[in-house]
């Protein structure tokens, strides 16, 4: 029997951003990329689980390309992944993306308004492109 290596996946870590509009955009974008746009190519890892020291979450970062999404300049997702020894291929800041999509002004926290959801989709599409490039550059290897 020939054992096929697991397909390489890009790990996505959004910030928690509880109570923050831009944090909600971060999480929505993460869901969009991992559940809709690139479900087979990505894996969602919870920032809270990393903070708690969850072994399987931390193990997912080992040898995997990681994309972080941060809602504010505190950049908690990026900092935590670095602290866990992960290698960040690219970090995305919601505010910087919003500057490119001024028409999508996010509002709301527990429920984003339509513009916020559109901003999350736009961000997810940018991330999808980076996922494709990352996998093309590092494809064929195994992780998590």
């Amino acid at each position, binding site marked *: 029997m020939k054992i096929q290596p697991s397909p390489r996946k890009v790990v996505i870590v959004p910030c928690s951003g509880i109570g*923050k*509009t*831009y944090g909600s955009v971060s999480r929505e974008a993460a869901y969009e990329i991992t559940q809709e746009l690139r479900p087979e190519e990505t894996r969602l890892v919870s920032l809270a689980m990393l903070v708690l020291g969850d072994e399987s979450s931390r193990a997912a970062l080992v040898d995997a390309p990681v994309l972080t999404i941060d809602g*504010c*300049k505190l950049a908690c997702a990026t900092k935590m992944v670095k602290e866990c020894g992960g290698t960040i291929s690219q970090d995305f800041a919601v*505010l910087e993306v*919003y*500057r490119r999509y*001024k028409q999508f002004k996010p509002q709301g926290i527990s429920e984003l308004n339509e513009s916020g959801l559109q901003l999350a989709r736009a961000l997810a599409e940018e991330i999808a492109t980076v996922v494709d490039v990352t996998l093309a550059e590092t494809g064929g290897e195994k992780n998590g």
Partner: protein
Amino acid sequence: MPDFLEMTVDKFTFKVAGDRFYTAEGVWALVDGNRVRIGLSDFQQQRSGDVAFAEVKPTGTRLALDEEVATIETIKVNISLGSPVTGRIIEVNPAMADAPEVINLEPYEAGWMAVIEADHWKDDQARLMTPLAYLAHMKAQAEEAAKK
């Protein structure tokens, strides 16, 4: 007067530059002859959050006292900033269009917004706060916010 006055409320430290005047809304005014450089105080930028967009009225715009000179959109709020002086805008910081986050990074230096040629600086100055007065004003606002 020291370069900066400082105050800490809760976990936040706010600086007040000692070489300029302030409006109650946190717009600073630094005078050089009849030219007045304006910007946002450290307290106001921290309180308002990360700046997404800053739009300053164009060069040549005439402004009455308190007339809107700029609008700022942050991750928390939209702010309309009134001019601390009467006069005409003679320079706008190009960073406001390209990299408005400089307001957060260097509110008293590279984060300046515009230079206004003042018509009557002495008259306008009398309406502005000294650094010490602004420090007290800011302290009251910060302590009020900390209670919420």
